[in-house]
């Protein structure tokens, strides 16, 4: 299967809407940062060294006994057309930075898109796994396995005291960043989200928007992740993040129950109004669509809106992005054109079957 087929197949594993706590948790991701000993980190390495890393990882991928060669594909970023790079970003398989200065960058993609390995991003290797629902441990196990396989042929930069050595000291140690994507419409609606974010920082966790650092909180979706990477085992970090997330899930559930008891009419009104706009709009921005889709998803979760699957939130969240719209239409689209096609796609996807 070519990369084109992979990206055309559109939906990634994490967008399936399955997994534990899937009424609130959209997905779980684990990322490991690894570097090869003796070669400068990508920001500092020269062209020859960057090329050497790409070649080494290409070979190590072939020899990696823990990954099924039928399931993974090694792709040089230079060979990936611009639009397809954006598709990968929108699906969270690569970072936005990985689409720039692509000459010596590569990515290893797992065909079901549950895992990817970025080569020469901030570190030589960035191994990541993405699962639907609250499944951090499964994501870690997959990363760990891929990592074990690379370890057989690559000599990692590692120090007994500081663990895996990374380009930025904020990743040193385990090199692991675990994150959970949560949909918190009622905590956001009632203004409790700010308080929660403050509390979460006290526990050594960070809150980010959907597409990482500095991105907005589109559609009431938040990413919780560990700040500290050194001094705790991978399992401890995951346990801690899962525990804190569980508390937040409980709070969101309690807030949902409360609002159902106290303000059901207003809530129903809001949900159906949002549904009304989405099912009739002829042009819509990503921002507005995400806010309204968040309401619709809440309506589905609370049983107020029937006949639509909950997974439309994560599905549309990706599909209404610029690159996906253009891929679907098979041509480049201007911003106003995108708004029109976005509205049409949403109308079709949220139609309730009679």
């Amino acid at each position: 299967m070519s990369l084109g087929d992979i990206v055309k197949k559109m939906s990634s594993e994490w967008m399936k809407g399955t997994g534990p706590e899937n009424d609130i948790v959209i997905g779980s991701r684990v990322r490991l940062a690894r570097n090869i000993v003796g070669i400068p980190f990508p920001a500092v390495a020269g062209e020859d060294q960057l090329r050497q890393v790409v070649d080494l990882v290409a070979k190590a991928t072939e020899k990696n006994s823990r990954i099924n060669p039928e399931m993974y594909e090694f792709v040089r970023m230079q060979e990936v057309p611009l639009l397809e790079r954006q598709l990968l970003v929108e699906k969270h398989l690569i970072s936005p930075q990985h689409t720039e200065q692509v000459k010596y960058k590569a990515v290893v993609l797992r065909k079901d898109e549950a895992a990817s390995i970025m080569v020469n991003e901030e570190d030589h290797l960035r191994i990541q796994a993405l699962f639907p629902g609250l499944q951090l441990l499964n994501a870690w196990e997959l990363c760990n396995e891929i990592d074990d396989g690379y370890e057989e042929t690559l000599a990692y930069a590692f120090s007994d005291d500081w663990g895996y050595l990374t380009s930025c000291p904020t990743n040193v140690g385990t090199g692991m960043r675990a994150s959970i994507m949560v949909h918190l419409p009622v905590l956001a609606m009632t203004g409790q989200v700010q308080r929660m974010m403050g509390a979460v920082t006290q526990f050594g966790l960070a809150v980010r928007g959907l597409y990482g650092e500095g991105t907005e909180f589109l559609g009431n979706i938040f990413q919780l992740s560990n700040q500290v990477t050194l001094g705790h085992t991978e399992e401890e970090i995951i346990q801690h993040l899962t525990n804190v997330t569980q508390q937040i899930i409980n709070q969101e559930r309690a807030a949902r129950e409360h609002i159902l008891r106290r303000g059901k009419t207003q809530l129903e009104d809001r949900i159906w109004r949002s549904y009304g706009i989405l099912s009739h709009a002829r042009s819509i921005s990503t921002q507005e669509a995400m806010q309204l889709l968040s309401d619709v998803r809440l309506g589905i979760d609370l049983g107020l809106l029937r006949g639509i699957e909950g997974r439309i939130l994560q599905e549309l969240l990706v599909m209404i992005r610029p690159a996906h719209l253009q891929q679907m239409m098979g041509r480049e689209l201007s911003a106003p054109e995108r708004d029109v096609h976005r509205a049409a796609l949403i109308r079709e996807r949220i139609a309730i079957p009679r």
Partner: protein
Amino acid sequence: MLCDACGKRIATVHVTKVINNEKTEAHLCQECAHEQGQMSFMTEPSSTFHNILAGLFEPETVISGRPIRTRVRCENCGLSFGDFRRLGHLGCNHCYETFHQQLEPLIRRVQGSTRHTGKVPRIEGRERLVRERELERLRKELAEAIAQEAYERAAVIRDRIRELEAEQD
């Protein structure tokens, strides 16, 4: 990647120009980019997370009372501690040794710890470290088991510890 102009400092400014369909690329360091006027559109290098992080190190020089020597360069990649403060990135694994002294307090502050307890790559010569970490974990478990009066489990853990200790010697 080193600067195209001076070939000494690290290129942090990447300029792509398309003039009459002719594409040229230049990779420059901050200093050379300033000289060539390539950065006229920016006032300061963007205040990314890394700049903020790099800024965290500043007080260190003041508190300790003696300025940290920023001129020392890593012999493997050529990065100086000054470069690191500006970029927020180290150059290679060797930098962690070169700047060990300066990095230690910083890592303690950012990470709250300076000792890795997680996964260890199973490369040759590291079996000892792997066992050591395993022993630490087991001793913790043993203490917990005893505290919970789960003596059967404690006995199993104790045997495993003895086995590992024998391998260590």
